[in-house]
């Protein structure tokens, strides 16, 4: 293994430790937008990068339960759903075990299942997941924008509004990106299908 490969292999744990460092943690939890749209996605990325640590045997067993990547993507969606709620993000700041739950469940139940399942998912499964993710960004953005009260005790209403606008922008960007890729890009429909049968 080259040095670069070693670094890449350890990128997940390194990123996890960095995110757990108190100054980084405090900075990323200082606003709702940063926690939701930067910290949690980065924790999911940690999980994605943990994929090489899964032993082959475990992957085989998991694959038997993960036809077309559907179970894994569902698990990731449920985990994401929980960490989208203002209440859980708020509690993470006040209750240490909730914070711990975030730092473990987002990588293990969101990022890792995504990494295991995405390559197995065919075009249709990926499509449904991406459409639903885009719709969720719009819905959540709308919800944050119209919520009449402050949803978190730690964050202000203005922050909530910012998160709402950012989510709408993310939804729009995802739609444009998907549309562009499907219209003019190169989509390997067969590749994903082949892998899903591998």
């Amino acid at each position, binding site marked *: 293994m080259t040095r670069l490969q070693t670094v890449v292999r350890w990128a997940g744990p390194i990123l996890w430790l960095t995110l757990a460092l108190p100054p980084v943690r405090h900075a990323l939890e200082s606003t709702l937008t940063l926690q939701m749209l930067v910290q949690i996605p980065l924790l999911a990325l940690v999980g994605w990068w943990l994929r090489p640590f899964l032993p082959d045997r475990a992957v085989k067993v998991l694959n038997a339960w993960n036809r077309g990547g559907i179970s894994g993507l569902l698990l990731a969606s449920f985990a994401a759903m929980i960490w989208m709620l203002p209440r859980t993000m708020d509690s993470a700041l006040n209750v240490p075990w909730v914070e711990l739950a975030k730092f473990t469940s987002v990588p293990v139940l969101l990022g890792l299942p995504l990494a295991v399942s995405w390559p197995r998912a065919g075009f249709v499964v990926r*499509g449904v997941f991406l459409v639903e993710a885009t*719709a969720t960004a719009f*819905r959540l953005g709308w*919800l944050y924008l119209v919520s009449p009260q402050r949803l978190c005790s730690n964050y202000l209403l203005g922050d909530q509004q910012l998160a709402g606008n950012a989510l709408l922008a993310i939804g729009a960007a995802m739609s444009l990106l998907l549309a562009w890729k499907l*219209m*003019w890009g190169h*989509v390997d429909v067969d590749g994903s299908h082949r892998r899903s049968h591998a």
Partner: protein
Amino acid sequence: MASLTMYPDDERLAGGERIAFNLYIVTAVALFVLMMLLGLTMRMTQAKWLTVQSPLFYQLLSMHGAGMVGTMALVTTAVMWFFLRKYVQLHLWAFVANYVLFMLGALCIIASIFVGRYGALWTFLYPLPVRGFGLWTSNTSALFMVGYLLIGVGSLLFYLDAAAGIIKVHGNLGRALGLQWLFGGKIDPDHPKAVVASTQVIISNSLGILAGAVVLVMSLVNIFFPTVVLNALLAKNLIYWFGHQYINATIYMGVIAVYELLPRYTGKPYPISRPFLWSWAASTLFVIVVYPHHLLMDFAQPRWLAVIGQMVSWGAGFPVFLVTVFGALTNLHRSGIRWTMPSRLLILSMFGWAAGIVPAILDGTIRNNLVMHNTQWVPGHFHFYLLLGVLAMAMALMYHVIGSRVSAPPNSSADKLGFPLYLAGGLIFTYAFLDAGRLSVPRRMAEHLDSWTFTDKVGSIGAILVVLAMLYFAIRISAGLLKQPSAGAAGVSTADAAG
């Protein structure tokens, strides 16, 4: 180029495909008859020939609207599937999943209307579903919306599978639409029109379904957490963005039957051309942004959106319709076409689409909309192109398929009677609506003033004729489809069939 062989082998339906196709069609024709009976009940109530209490009228209107739009989508999906599967690989599971989810969604909708008494119409415009004034509860509306979500997921699965098949063959959706040939280059004469039309539908309807998925879930959130108040104008924009594309897509799926079948009945090739590709490219873009014409009278709507609505209304409908109707007429001219049921229905569909789109475009003009908005002019124009246009396209395929079972296009004496009955009834029914619109009779009213009932009565008579004809078609088509194909039924050439 579409085949000139009347019943080519690659269209033969066997095994699971045949069962699935029959399920789609038999369900659809049965639903059409039932929904038409509800429509007739409403029209006769407006004419004061029947007495239906107003709350029940709005339940019937909700069922008729949602049921007809859904059934039209179901049947035209079958048209798209039937032809597209020849050119790209489609998986039967996706076609069947769409059917199953549609039926589950339909059950939710039927239960919410007839058990829960939902009456907030197919457009579920916020906040009506949560303001039932004791007639229906919010939970009932939630069930209605869950029904829509199930139907939407089914359509999405089908479109994604179709998109995968198309991309596998053509690389991406842009190439499938033929964008590479817009400004030059030699157009591949074998590039299927069915692929072009299907691609347009996949693009526009997926976006519509995305908007629907957002607004439906937000409406559900509002039902269960009433403190989350929605912006009614935004909700209306999204609902019409979704609703308009969903019903519009039925025309674009249905017209594939014309592209594929017409040349077989005229015996003349129907080549693909640059104007054809241009028109579909333009309509792909326009159909996405045309919906504001439904909100021309919403004073809070930004003015620029209304202006887009008007301008694009003129641009969106025209290109594909002009190119298709012109193409069809050219194909028909001096062709020596044999008038059998499929060919009659194909030509009727061109007329229904062409004639129905004119009042639609008139209404999409702000000046006219000032007086036409929410009058019966609106059901006048959409019944015109749905009943005489899209349904005729779908029935042309149904008749064609039952012809393939016996290797000859159907043309019985009863068919020869049913067709003019349907046409005359359809014209009387739709013109009565249009005339009522001219007289400013409002749409969606359970009770009509005495001075409005003349057009209601004329419309009811037309509707009775349509229902009779449709009842006959439904029985004829179901019986024809369920018949075992005769030996060697496929592969008959145009010449054989015409001879």
